[in-house]
């Protein structure tokens, strides 16, 4: 059914359609509207046989989710930013225990300094946590991905983070096609846990595993990730067939045929970029977009195929590794190992700095003009803001426009 609603409400409805048994939440912007709505559904009885717990911290939210999932219930929670970090220990516990929790991460920067706006530093900080991380480019994608996420998680036996850009998507009112309960009941049968706590068949879950088997446990966890690549594709195909949706998948290509340059983007920037790419096409510039949906597991093979013969790739990254470089770019490089594809990182859109069509436009022009000479470039630094500090503090100024990593490094050489 088509509805004009806030993304958060759409996700809440999607979650409710999946008939979770337990939902728990702790408030943190910009995730709040989602669980507020789910809580309301539970209270009104629209969502039956579901317990909604208001917990006292994200640490307890993930922990309640762990308990609930270990108890054999379909379980959902949501968080963002600091909340995700506060959960971190539980995040690893949940994946280690193979609990198919679905959690929305309404992506938001991590402080300090405290910042409530959107980027990807929270979810990507949990890159190695053993969770599947699925990114959404629109609210429709978010609605559909949440539904698919339950099925994927339960099939794979791992928890799934559905990462949707905070505010940009969560707070946007858009036209959403919400599947019917009948459709989802057909798609997602009642949860049959692989293992859970029951007095009928007692087991001890969560043993201490020493050096004699820990590597093998990890190997098998990694094997689940490998399985997940297949499951994501299968489930996406099934879902699309059932609903006619275009959402999901490992990655999605846009205008990739014969593109001179491809942009790899995660999240809501994809839509903005698509509009801009269409405009560029009118100028005769042929740019493809690879919307990376599944960051974990990383679809190396699908990525290699999506890039194909394209010689130039820019990864638009909304988070990076301090003291290191980009986060997506190294993965793409691994995917393209042995080719002469030129792959670079353009960092932009941190802490809510808007990425406009014009940002994309400039990035493309820059790339095609061969100005991306380094792997890592700060793309949307405001030199006025920056210099207002560095000039006074250190007598250093930075030029306008994108800043390569070497420029940053050079500025401290004489320090």
């Amino acid at each position, binding site marked *: 059914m088509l509805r004009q609603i806030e993304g958060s409400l759409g996700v809440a409805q999607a979650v409710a359609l999946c008939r979770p048994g337990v939902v728990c939440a702790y408030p943190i912007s910009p995730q709040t509207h989602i669980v507020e709505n789910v809580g309301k559904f539970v209270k009104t009885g629209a969502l039956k046989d579901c317990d909604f717990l208001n917990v006292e911290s994200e640490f307890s939210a993930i922990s309640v989710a762990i308990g609930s999932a270990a108890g054999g219930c379909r379980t959902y929670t949501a968080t963002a930013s600091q909340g995700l970090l506060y959960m971190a220990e539980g995040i690893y516990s949940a994946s280690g225990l193979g609990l198919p929790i679905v959690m929305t991460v309404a992506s938001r920067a991590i402080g300090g300094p405290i910042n409530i706006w959107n980027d990807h530093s929270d979810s990507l900080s949990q890159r190695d946590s053993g969770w599947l991380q699925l990114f959404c480019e629109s609210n429709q994608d978010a609605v559909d991905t949440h539904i698919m996420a339950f099925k994927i998680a339960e099939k794979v036996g791992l928890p799934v983070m559905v990462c949707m850009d905070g505010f940009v998507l969560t*707070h946007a009112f858009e036209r959403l096609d919400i599947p019917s309960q009948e459709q989802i009941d057909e798609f997602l049968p009642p949860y049959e846990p692989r293992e859970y706590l029951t007095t009928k068949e007692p087991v001890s879950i969560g043993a201490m595993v020493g050096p004699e088997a820990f590597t093998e446990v990890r190997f098998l966890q990694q094997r689940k990730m490998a399985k997940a690549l297949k499951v994501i594709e299968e489930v996406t195909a099934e879902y699309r067939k059932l609903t006619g949706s275009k959402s999901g998948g490992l990655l999605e290509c846009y205008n990739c045929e014969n593109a001179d340059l491809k942009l790899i983007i995660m999240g809501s920037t994809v839509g903005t970029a698509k509009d801009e790419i269409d405009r560029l096409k009118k100028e005769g510039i042929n740019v493809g977009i690879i919307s990376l949906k599944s960051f974990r597991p990383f679809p190396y093979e699908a990525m290699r195929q999506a890039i194909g013969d394209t010689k130039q790739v820019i990864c638009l990254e909304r988070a990076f590794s301090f003291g290191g470089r980009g986060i997506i770019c190294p993965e793409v490089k691994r995917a393209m190992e042995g080719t002469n594809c030129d792959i670079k990182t353009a960092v932009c859109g941190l802490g809510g700095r808007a990425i406009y069509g014009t940002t994309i436009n400039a990035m493309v022009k820059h790339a095609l003009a061969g100005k991306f000479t380094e792997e890592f470039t700060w793309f949307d630094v405001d030199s006025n803001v920056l210099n207002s500090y560095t000039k006074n503090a250190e007598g250093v100024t930075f030029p306008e426009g994108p800043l390569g990593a070497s420029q940053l490094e050079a500025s401290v050489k004489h320090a």
Partner: protein
Amino acid sequence: MLQIRLHGRGGQGVVTAAEMLSLAAFLEGHFAQAFPSFGSERTGAPVVAYARIGEGEIRTHEPIQNPDVVIVQDKTLLGSVDVFGGLNPQGYAIINSKDPAEKVVPELVKMLPEGHVFTVPATDFAMQKIGKPLPGAPMLASLAAATDILKLESVQKSFQSRYPGKIGDANAETAALAYNYIKDSKKGGSNA
């Protein structure tokens, strides 16, 4: 695609207005999008919200830099915020004020085509019917009257579906007052 930017202050229902605008458009079969300028602003702080109306899927999520319409719910913002920044030279502006546009935004009136700048005493209408300074519905109704991109009924319906009962009805009545006010002023040829 029509891009609308709404300016106001926290507590005046600016974000809601943008959402209702998108809902009204949706009800008429358009694609629409609304989103706030995200922040942690509290009551009284300047707030911006955006809306897009189009005939196909709206993919972009960038903030609106070049609006086709600017709605100013609080004229006290005029001196402090560049509310008309990036406004399409062929665009529209609607300002919540009892005073004529020529008096409130004389520069803008000169800049935009004639009949593209309107003032409407939306807060007065709201106080009459709702009893609270919530100018959202009359501002949207003014937009509908000024541009004909929406029907009054759609604006009314959007509020009534969001706030079923008395409050929705009061908003609908307020909207009608504003709608007629603009229509009347258009008939009068000038908004002055």
